């Protein structure tokens, strides 16, 4: 076989088409930037802080937990952003959901699990209100949810002080230990495995012989689970296609029969529910609710979604990207304590990362939509 074999197909091919390499297909994926960024961040901290204990079992669980908390809301924020809207009320909703759990449980004597259901029901109402206002008025979601940001934060503070006379609601610990469902949000998984690893001396132990990292926190499992479910919805269901369509071209989608209003309202309910899940994880882990909880989280969620490849204009993005965006955020925010760098610099890094991500995303969008 010395001569180069001639493909039969070659003649019938359009001369204007060229083969696109696998690499280019990958380059067009929205989550590429966040994936690459995560790898860079890990290489960076591996070199700088590799021997400091950051990547021990305890250290790893630590930064993963921070990433997971943010990831939970970032994934919902990303889906909403793909659907063409923002939710700035996520942070306030976290605080509001927190007191919706703590006050009924402690001051009204509700079983904890009913208080949790109550908080989720409130979240559905808040999300529905956000969505309905945006869809019905046609106002930018930025404004509508900015108003909701203040309303919820104000209501959290006012109601808590009215009912309890202070701004924190502690004392949930006993209730949590005796509740049938609280473990879903706060228990560690694989504790047996961690104890075994500890007994083998593979991970660090406390003085009493129990491992320092007792297991994988529930929030990390929620984070991974939500990423998988959100990705499945976006890529593999009709509803997922409607989300892309609603964000990509609202009018076109409506003309062709996509229930754009319903899609957007459900996505707003999604962000409010994610905020409530975040609140559950925190309140049930710490054992108290605080009116200022979740402050500025809405912006962090948007940063994670954008770093994860979501376009601010909607119609493009990925849940996996947002999960990696949250991972970068969590890794750097925790990792910086293991370095000699002053932690004040974290926000500078955050801003720069967001800028780079937006520029990169813009470039990707051009690649995808233009005939290059």
């Amino acid at each position, binding site marked *: 076989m010395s001569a180069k074999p001639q493909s039969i197909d070659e003649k019938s091919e*359009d001369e204007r*088409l060229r083969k*696109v390499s696998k690499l280019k297909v990958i380059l067009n994926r929205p989550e590429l930037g966040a994936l690459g960024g995560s790898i860079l961040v890990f290489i960076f901290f591996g070199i700088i802080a590799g021997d400091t204990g950051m990547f021990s079992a305890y250290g790893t669980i630590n930064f993963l937990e921070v990433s997971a908390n943010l990831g939970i809301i970032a994934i919902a924020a990303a889906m909403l952003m793909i659907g063409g809207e923002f939710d700035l009320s996520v942070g306030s909703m976290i605080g509001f959901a927190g007191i919706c759990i703590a006050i009924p449980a402690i001051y009204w004597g509700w079983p904890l699990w009913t208080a949790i259901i109550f908080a989720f029901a409130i979240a559905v109402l808040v999300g529905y209100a956000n969505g309905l206002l945006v869809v019905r008025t046609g106002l930018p979601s930025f404004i509508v949810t900015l108003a909701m940001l203040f309303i919820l934060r104000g209501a959290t503070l006012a109601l808590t002080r009215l009912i309890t006379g202070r701004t924190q609601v502690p004392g949930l610990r006993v209730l949590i230990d005796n509740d049938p469902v609280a473990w879903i949000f706060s228990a560690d998984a694989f504790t047996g495995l961690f104890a075994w690893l500890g007994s083998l001396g593979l991970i660090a132990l406390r003085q009493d012989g129990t491992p320092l990292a007792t297991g994988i926190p529930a929030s990390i499992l929620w984070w991974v689970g939500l990423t998988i479910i959100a990705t499945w919805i976006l*890529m*593999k*269901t*009709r509803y*997922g*296609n*409607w989300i*892309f*369509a609603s964000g*990509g*071209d609202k*009018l*076109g*989608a409506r*003309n*062709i*029969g*996509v229930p754009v209003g319903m899609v957007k309202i459900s996505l707003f309910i999604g962000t409010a529910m994610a905020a409530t899940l975040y609140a559950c994880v925190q309140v049930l882990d710490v054992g108290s609710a605080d009116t200022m909880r979740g402050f500025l989280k809405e912006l962090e969620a948007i940063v994670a979604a954008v770093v994860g490849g979501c*376009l601010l204009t909607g*119609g*493009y993005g990925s849940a996996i990207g947002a999960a990696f965006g949250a991972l970068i955020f969590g890794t750097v925010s925790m990792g910086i304590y293991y370095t000699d760098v002053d932690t004040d610099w974290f926000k500078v890094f955050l801003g720069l990362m967001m800028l780079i991500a937006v520029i990169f995303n813009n470039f990707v*969008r051009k690649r*995808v*939509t*233009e*005939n290059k």
Partner: protein
Amino acid sequence: MNEYIVEFNNISKFFGSVIALKDVTMKVKKGEIMCLLGDNGAGKSTLIKTLSGVHSPDEGEIIVEGDKKIFDSPRDALDLGIATVYQDLALVSLMSVTRNFFMGREPTKGFSLFRTFDVDKANQIAAERMGQIGIDVRDPSQAVGTMSGGERQCLAISRAIYFGAKVLILDEPTSALGVHQASVVLKYIVKAASQGLGVILITHNVHHAYPVGNSFTVLNRGKSLGTYAKKDLSRERLLGMMAGGEELDKLEVELKEIDRISSN
């Protein structure tokens, strides 16, 4: 049996004191391309919206396959097989060919909670359909943004046909296209009609309409100047009727005047 698929008889539409349409009558047969011509402001947009169910007419009747119908929404028109392809095409450029093709009407597989969008089947149908009109979609998961204007137009038309259109209303399908692209689209429209669809082609471009049309309705200031079969109408006469004639004559006189003045 009525030979027309759809008839719009004496349609009038008023917006307050404005008479947008007055006594407009239009009929389309199976396999026929009926061109609706008119200058800007002639009432084309209002007529399209009335035909497609966005507006309901204040006077007149709509008869689909012999039965009188009332359209309350675009959905009603669509259910009767009257599909409108608007100028914006209702395509999302960031989404793939397949996802656009099946937007809002995705094929599914599986049961209840686990019912999924059957991407493989959708990809296959989209590629097949686009192939039939001579557009080789190598990768149906490529974004629509990478396609040319003509290909997008064809995609939108092909989608309407796939989902059971009997009458296609095409709003200025060639207005944003170059010469070659326009001819590709026009060829496809002729092909669609030859397969038994009725086509209402709305345009202000006589040079695009005349070669493909079987009959022509000219709209001027909300009124129909009548419907003519191709054999009764020359291209020049059609051009003249499109408000262009008189106005262009006037323009010519005015230009001569300007010439005369400036040469003095």
